[in-house]
């Protein structure tokens, strides 16, 4: 395998802390917040959209050649591990949840704390899928309350964009 060539494209309005582990071809969109100690490993390229939040010790991996696209307003909570080749918008991956490369998320999906999503065959979660509980059960959310949740997500990201630079050194993109 050829060595991974680093190429970081970080939007000037994104907040990416110095102490993150980035490897490979990574594009981070405007307003996205990456906490210290997060890991993004791009064997194939990874493109993260706007206003996402990647928390501490979250791990995002793309093992494939194709681009892994992550949409807008996604939240990756502490210690989660995500290898899904495609993630839509406004998803929540809770603390220590694990998503295998066989699953794709659309939008408004919620993976509960500690859930393991590892379907044997490729699977795409439709909008508003909720995975919860110790045995990772699935159900569909009615979507009621999503506007309020998005509102909260935006405020969350805005607060972090304001506070994180006060206590952390930031990383800039290659061409910034």
């Amino acid at each position, binding site marked *: 395998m050829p060595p991974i060539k680093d190429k970081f494209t970080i939007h000037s309005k994104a907040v990416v802390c110095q102490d993150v582990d980035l490897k490979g071809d990574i594009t981070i969109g405007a307003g996205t917040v990456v906490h210290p100690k997060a890991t993004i490993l791009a064997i194939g390229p990874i493109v993260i959209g706007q206003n996402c939040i990647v928390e501490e010790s979250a791990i995002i991996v793309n093992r494939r050649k194709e681009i892994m696209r992550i949409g807008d307003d996604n939240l990756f909570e502490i210690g989660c591990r995500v290898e899904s080749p495609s993630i839509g918008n406004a998803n929540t991956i809770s603390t220590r949840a694990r998503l295998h490369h066989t699953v794709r998320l659309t939008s408004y999906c919620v993976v509960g704390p500690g859930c393991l999503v590892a379907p044997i065959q490729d699977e795409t979660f439709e909008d508003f899928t909720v995975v919860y509980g110790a045995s990772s059960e699935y159900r569909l959310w009615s979507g*009621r309350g999503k506007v309020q949740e998005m509102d909260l997500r935006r405020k969350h990201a805005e607060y972090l964009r304001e506070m994180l630079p006060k206590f952390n050194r930031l990383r800039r993109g290659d061409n910034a």
Partner: protein
Amino acid sequence: MRCHKVPSASVRAEKNRCARNCFLCPLCRNTLSVVPSDPPEPEDPRLSPIATSTIGEPPFFLYCNFCRWDSADVGIVFDKPTGLAVQLQKYEDSAPDTLEFERLKEHFEQFIRVSNAVASNHPTGSNHMNSITAAASSVLSRDIPGVAKYSGRKSKSDKHNNRDEVPPYRSRFEAGANGILGQGGGENDVSFLATLEDISEVQTLEQRSISKFSDNSVTVPSDLRPLRIPLHSKKSKRCPSCRHILIKPEQKAQSVKYKIKLVAVNYLPAITVTLPSFAPPAPTLDKLKRSLTAKQNPEDEKTGPFQMQAGKTYPFHIALTNPLYDLITVKLSVQRTAQPTGKRPAFAVSLPAAAFPIAAYAEAWEYEDDDEMFDNETDDIDELLEMRGLSPPEREVRAKTRNKTVGVLEKKANTTVIGGEVVIGKDGRGDVKFNMLVSYTYRSDDIGSSEVEGGASKTPKALALETKTFSFYTVVDLGVIVPKDESGSNI
């Protein structure tokens, strides 16, 4: 949100459940929160600026943050976010189960009253015989038609003749009529279950058992209703022998603290077991101190499933830390487990048989010179202990290694490290787990501090005037035995 003191009268009236705004999710049993409805959605939510504030707009509904269940799914919405239990009361009260239960209660009420009167005439009755159990027992002892009468019972029933007369109960609906009334259990459910494809389409047993007052069909999860949170009580515990209060929680519902908290771990030596051949360093004092301050349970000494090979001998260390302000003398012994006849024990454990001291705990340690290392008192090793189960070569091996490993290894501050040894039989299997009897003696200065009684495992023995001896059993788990033939390749 278990946050209020509830008077006992309303506990009974509300069937032991919260009468305020606390509800459980019927799917996952998480606490539900009351949320307002969404404001009208902007055309493109991504372009819209952050909404200034989400106004609490009715209708309100209950929402589970964990599995995203919401009560609007089952058609429960509220105009205002307070007093939800009252608003939900009508669902509960009109449920057929509730009505049936009320009817049953009514039916037995007069019967209970009569048996109460009888019970008051016979004050000799045991105190667990309250009116309800009395009623239940007399109903149970009623004659069953077609069954031969128990001869000894007749005379007794004559005495309490009036107690046995219960008019037959007629339920609101005949059993089996539910299906006709669309209440589950009938033809509809049969056909529903016949066409069932996915297990998630039916309620789980747990969901069904906790939703006692569910209405209509009990099979479809979408019919589940939010549940009022069961009330909890705080209990204090007393010593069974001297009635001294051992733990007493604070009265305030929000507080998780204890007014009185006498737990055994503060009085028993903390025990940590390590296998030096697996764990890199022997436990340091630092670690032990931390485990002490963390109130480590002495029983909880399992450090991980070590894999041991059959037919080998492993030394192990037991570190005992004294939490008392007095010097204690400890004696360890292994409980011999009864083996099925003709079978050799899978392993044999040897421990120093002599009692050894552990220094008292002091707030600030002055690290003077450490006590000189103890001479190994090999003579005192309980030779007979488990030798019987070993073959001659194993015995030889043990005799060789014993001198170095068994005995008091280290004494530092209030911690003493003891070396032990486990010999695993050639065809040993299973867990290396043994019961160890720890008995310790200390000389107490003040008589008043004798609050150590309590745990069922302890057997206080008054030896001398001031010395006290306590003993308890604990289980030591050293690891698992890997059969030799399977692991032979990777040694």
